[in-house]
Each structure stands twice: as structure tokens, then as C-alpha cells.
């Protein structure tokens, strides 16, 4: 289990004062197909993006609330890390991007018939946000629309 003690002192103080949101009361969507038939998407807060294709994160003024859509056949170890926080083991993810976006592992489960398919696109954003409410209002609806276009049955979230 991760511990706040892993973090630099500055983060430990910030987190002590941070007011975590509660999403209690959020609707419960039911998986409508068997897992072996489900098209599954990955969503990561690691801010992964394709060098030379996608814009980096954190280059705009203020918080970067945008999302990147990564084709599922992307060679993940060529992805860059745009997460602006340093409060996680970046070196581990540099060694193996599956720790933040387990696309290779999900493809293996699809090939083994454990899920129906990997969604055609994964979603990536910079999870280092001080005002997640704006992300929920401004960015999340577009992500949901994209997943609907991709006819996704379920989404898995991977934090850093």
C-alpha cells in the first residue's frame, strides 16, 4: 500500500489539508455483457502522450485539463510521461509503462479470451489537478462521448 510518508514533505503537508471529494450517490452502471464479450478501455492519470503526435501536458497556462486518446496499438514504451507531479515512482514507469497504462497486459487478456476486446483508444490525462471539479465538468463529458463512440462496455482506471 502506498503511504503519504513516501512523499516529499511539501506534499505531505498539502495532503493533510486536502479536502477529498466523495462520489457517494454516483449512479451504478451495470456491465451489460459478459466479461468475455466486453470491450474494455483503459484510463490513466499518468499523462502519457505520443511524442511528436500529441501535445505535452502542463504546457498551457494554469492546469492542463485536456485528455489524450492513445490508439490501442500504440507501442507504450515509446510514450512520454506528461504527469507534472513528482510524487510517484517515475523511474518504475519509465522502465515499464504497463504500470500506468497496462495496454500490453490487457491485449494479452483479450488474446486469451478473458475479455472480449481492448477498446480502440485508451484515455490519458494529467491527474495532478488542484481543481478536479473543473476536470469533471469540462473534460469528463468528452471522455464519456469518446468511449461511447468506441462502443466501450467498461473502463478501468489506473492512477499513479
Amino acid at each position, binding site marked *: 500500500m502506498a503511504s503519504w510518508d513516501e512523499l516529499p514533505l511539501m506534499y505531505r503537508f498539502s495532503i493533510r489539508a486536502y479536502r477529498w471529494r466523495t462520489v457517494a450517490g454516483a*449512479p451504478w452502471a451495470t456491465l451489460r455483457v459478459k466479461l468475455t464479450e466486453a470491450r474494455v478501455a483503459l484510463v490513466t492519470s499518468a499523462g502519457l502522450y505520443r511524442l511528436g503526435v500529441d501535445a505535452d501536458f502542463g504546457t498551457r497556462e494554469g492546469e492542463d485539463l485536456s485528455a489524450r486518446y492513445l490508439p490501442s496499438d500504440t507501442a507504450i514504451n515509446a510514450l512520454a510521461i506528461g504527469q507534472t507531479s513528482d510524487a510517484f515512482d517515475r523511474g518504475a514507469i519509465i522502465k515499464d509503462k504497463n504500470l500506468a497504462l497496462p495496454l500490453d497486459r490487457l491485449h494479452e487478456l483479450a488474446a486469451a479470451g478473458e475479455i472480449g476486446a481492448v477498446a480502440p483508444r485508451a484515455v490519458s490525462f494529467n491527474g495532478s489537478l488542484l481543481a478536479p471539479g473543473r476536470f469533471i465538468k469540462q473534460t469528463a463529458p468528452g471522455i464519456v462521448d469518446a468511449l461511447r463512440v468506441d462502443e466501450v462496455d467498461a*473502463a478501468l482506471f489506473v492512477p499513479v
Partner: protein
Amino acid sequence: MERGGIPTACIALVRNVAEVLRAPRMLAVPYRFGRALGEPGDADGQREVLRALLALLERPGPGPALEDYAIR
């Protein structure tokens, strides 16, 4: 996303935060920040975490569901 009809399952790195957030389906893993799936290069271990996460999707509602992942 759930409101949009898409079921979700989320890895949680800090259990007491997951308890507060109360997202629909969360899997608390015994790993450090940046290692949500475990160790780099451990494909077997990473697949097991994904299997546990996927299994949450088949649980009947209502949530929230918060499970602890035991390393296999």
C-alpha cells in the same frame, strides 16, 4: 462515466482515500505510488491485478465496492 452508462473499476493506492471517495468499484493494491500494477517487468503479476480489477465489474450493485488485492 457511470452516469453515462459505462461501468468503471479503479485501482486505489491509498485505502483510506478510497474509503472517502466511495467510487463505485475500487481495488486497493499493496503497491507504492507509480507502481499501481506492481513491479516493472512482472507481466504475470500485472495480469493478476487486472484480473482482480475486471472481476469487480461483474459484482452485483449497488456499490460502492472496495476490495483489497492480495498478491497472488
